[in-house]
């Protein structure tokens, strides 16, 4: 019994460690390869919040596009998961050691990165923040999605789809994060100022958890049988709404507008359960980051924020090249 158990436990861990190591190599192989600016080209080190996820791969593509266009050399790296703050700090450390001409950085933890950012500042290496940005005065600019504007666009589409009047509810991923608050407020403010005949009947938070969002969207539909539309503020929330409408058999009665992408959301748009969704433009985020870095190297003034834009996608344009570039399964 004891032996069996020890063997089982051992096997379990060995397998886990092996699998984890395999992943690890795949994740970081790209990172350090390029070395630093030996050539005459300016060298920009980009340290992102992730690497493997398709979102970050799209950011990477955008960065490479800009690198080619402006004739600079870049490296792009990021930790495997968004909780690996220490790993990201290490990456930023080694990026600094390579003495780059500029740094692109999306902080997992701004405070943890502060000493390194101060070091960059003292060495006069310009820092460009991107995506969720860096909570600090040091970065010259931040290339990111204007979530408020993007959510306002979602509100415009929702209003158009339900004919400018009716009852709408929101399933938001959380009430404290910047994206949660901006997407909620962007949607609510646009509805309030532009569409007086649309009533917002409820705003609830499902933590981006698919199951919880499903249950709460169902409850909303129960509480408001005459609901016309529901906005889901991120992938988990939007899929929750889709599940809810399917489980209640209310396809077609409720207009669903989503945010972000993912296979389930793409499928729901293709089969018509979801009317459409807003996606960020990860390619644009990468592109604008490198572009801003180049401008900083050349001593140009930069605006405080660079809006990297967003796209609305629905059944009609989902197969367009431009959209396929920025959505992922």
């Amino acid at each position, binding site marked *: *019994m*004891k032996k069996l*158990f020890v063997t*089982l*436990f051992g096997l*379990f861990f060995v397998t*886990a460690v092996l*699998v*984890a190591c395999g*992943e690890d190599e795949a994740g970081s192989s790209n990172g350090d390869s390029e070395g630093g600016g030996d050539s005459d080209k300016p060298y920009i080190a980009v340290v992102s919040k992730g690497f*493997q*996820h398709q979102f970050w791969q799209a950011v990477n593509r955008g960065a490479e596009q800009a690198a080619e266009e402006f004739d600079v050399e870049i490296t792009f790296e990021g930790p*495997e*998961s968004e909780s690996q703050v220490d790993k990201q700090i290490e990456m930023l450390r080694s990026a600094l050691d390579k003495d780059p001409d500029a740094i692109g950085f999306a902080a997992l933890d701004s405070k943890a990165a502060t000493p390194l950012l101060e070091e960059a500042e003292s060495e006069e290496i310009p820092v460009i923040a991107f995506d969720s940005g860096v909570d600090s005065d040091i970065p010259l600019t931040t290339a990111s999605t204007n979530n408020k504007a993007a959510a306002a666009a979602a509100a415009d589409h929702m209003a158009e789809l339900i004919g400018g009047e009716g009852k709408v509810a929101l399933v938001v991923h959380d*009430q404290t994060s910047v994206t949660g608050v901006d997407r909620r407020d962007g949607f609510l403010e646009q509805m309030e100022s532009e569409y007086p005949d649309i009533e917002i*009947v*409820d705003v*609830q*938070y499902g933590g981006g*958890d*698919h*199951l919880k969002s*499903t*249950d*709460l969207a*169902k*409850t*909303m539909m*129960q*509480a408001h*049988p005459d609901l016309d539309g529901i906005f889901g503020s991120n992938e*988990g929330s939007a*899929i929750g709404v889709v*599940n809810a409408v399917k*489980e*209640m058999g209310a396809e077609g009665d409720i207009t669903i507008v989503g945010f972000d992408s*993912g*296979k*389930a959301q793409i*499928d729901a748009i293709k089969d018509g359960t979801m009317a459409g969704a807003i996606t960020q433009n990860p390619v644009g985020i990468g592109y604008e980051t490198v572009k801003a870095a180049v401008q900083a190297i050349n001593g140009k003034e930069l605006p405080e924020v660079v809006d990297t834009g967003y796209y609305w996608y629905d059944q009609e344009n989902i197969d367009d090249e431009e959209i396929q570039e920025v959505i992922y399964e």
Partner: protein
Amino acid sequence: MKTEVSNPGIEKRKSKLPFKSGALQQILAFSSLIVLILFFSITSRNFMEFSNIMNILLSTSVIGILALGTTLVIITGGIDLSIGTAMTLCSVMTGVFITFLGLPIPIGILLGILSGGLSGFLVGSAVAKMKIPPFIATLAMMMIAAGLALVISGTRPIYFSDTPAFTQVALGSIIPGIEIPNAVLIFFLMATIGYIILNKTVIGRYTFSIGSNEESTRLSGVNVNRWKIIIYSIAGLFTGVAGVVMAARLNSAQPALGMGYELEAIAAVVIGGTSLSGGKGTMVGTVIGALIMSVLTNGLRILSVPQEWQDVVIGIVVIFAVYADILRRRNT
């Protein structure tokens, strides 16, 4: 059997438990549930509709099944923090078996449930054989399972798009004519199984016995370690069932979910009158506890109470449930 007869102390205590002192808390929990239902029926005209009752039952199913399994563990005086993420791991394994390996759905489901059993077996072994306190052992398994779910799935959800029948496991209805989702039926089936295990089998007797007094159970010749491993493994199988139901309902295995579900399940168990110090508890109580949680959440949402306040209210309910438990013990 012989050992029990030779130790009338234990025999007497546990035979008394499910009926006498457990009954008060159960009645208390049950009447709170009735009061809540009445309150929401009066305050909201949409609450007492068939479709909403099905919503409530469906939203109880996953947490409820988790809570049933963990009731056994809590009665032994242990705790299982790993059930939330272990459930996610089971969802992911079901996805691996069905979508990646293309196994037939019933076999995939069975293997998914067995993954839960294995996880429970490992936790039980760590508790019983390595003498690691349950809180720590299951906390470790919680992290291991959360990590493995991400590693195995490649941090991406696994979809069951190729096997549309799979979602019927949770959302279909095997009873023709009445639209009761299978997930709800599975919940009640598991509750019945849990009831039988706890009240009609030797496993249940030892569960109470270990929770009441582990040392005297051991001294009376019971192989406590072995029974603990068995109990944790059974709880693991319940976790596996919850994982399959969740995957079927979402038509996908979402590797990042699950953290925090264990606390909701434990709250349901406690509200249902099971004592965290072990030795006392019932399956019926857990079912009622889980229902109280989801009736509260559902009702407050229907009344459009802001999320922040929903959590406050549920927290207060947990405090009162535990306080009632303490009062009861003082009286006996």
